[in-house]
């Protein structure tokens, strides 16, 4: 049997990964037109750099690294203000902040026998609500949350993609998740899903 050419392999894998590439591009750019451009630019770079693919088992990580690098350079090229770029986040968030656990806010142990607030919250959480919460994260936090929690890359793989130490990935992920959960708590309160909050008036009320 003849071995599949690198070109044929790349096309097949890109086709297989396309929904995930587009989904990640959407979370990064927060804009369908920019997401399309980002994926197309990424595919151009992948196809133009087939010699860079040494190990087919690493294709997934390699493509996402190119996607991230393309997004990062587009971001820097477009921004007249350096604070809009990735590197500025560590300054803006230098103060860190304490961990925020949505579970602690929602969990009502005394309701255990006749209701479960946190499960009800998850049941009512829509994908669009989560997208909004992810999209609201600052760039540096958003990218690690997307690569870890959505794409399932390891800390080391993310560190390699972003060219940062593993400790930086760990700390950005921790702070990104706290922020994400805080945003979801705000949503829970607004939607009347938080313990003690009143149901908002809606079309069914």
């Amino acid at each position, binding site marked *: 049997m003849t071995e599949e050419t690198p*070109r044929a392999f790349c*096309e097949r894998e*890109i*086709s297989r990964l*396309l*929904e*995930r590439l*587009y*989904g*990640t591009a*959407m*979370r990064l750019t927060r804009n*369908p037109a920019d997401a*399309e451009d980002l*994926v*197309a630019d990424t*595919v*151009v770079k992948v*196809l*133009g750099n087939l010699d860079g693919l040494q190990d087919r088992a690493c294709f997934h990580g390699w493509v996402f690294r190119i996607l991230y690098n393309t997004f990062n350079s587009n971001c820097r090229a477009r921004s007249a203000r350096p604070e809009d770029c990735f590197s500025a986040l560590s300054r803006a968030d230098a103060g860190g902040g304490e961990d925020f*656990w*949505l*579970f602690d806010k*929602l*969990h009502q*142990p005394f309701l255990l026998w006749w209701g479960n607030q*946190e*499960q009800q919250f*998850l049941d009512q*959480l829509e*994908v669009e609500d*989560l*997208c909004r919460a*992810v999209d609201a994260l600052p760039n540096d936090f958003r990218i690690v949350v*997307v690569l*870890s*929690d*959505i*794409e*399932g890359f*390891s*800390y080391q793989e993310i560190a390699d993609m972003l060219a940062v130490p593993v400790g930086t990935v*760990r700390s950005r*992920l*921790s702070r990104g*998740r706290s922020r994400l959960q805080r945003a979801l708590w705000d949503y829970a309160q607004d939607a009347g899903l938080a313990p003690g909050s009143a149901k908002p008036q809606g079309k069914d009320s």
Partner: protein
Amino acid sequence: MSEIKKIRCEEAISRLLEFLDRECDDHTHAEMDKHLSDCQACYSRMEFEQRLRSQLKKTGAQQVPGSLKGRIDKLFAGTVKK
């Protein structure tokens, strides 16, 4: 491996997300496993985080617009190396 010691809830909570990420070393993983078997409150917390994460994963894959599919098809067709 040395003996698996009991850890407190505070410690388990601080390691929970790394445990779910499979980023703990084997010993810590075993300590977490033991704690989660013994502590129903921390187990509930873990279940919540797991479910939240599986819902978050759903934001990853998105239906690809036809316009993008068309662009990718053109890229595949237009840059074929002989």
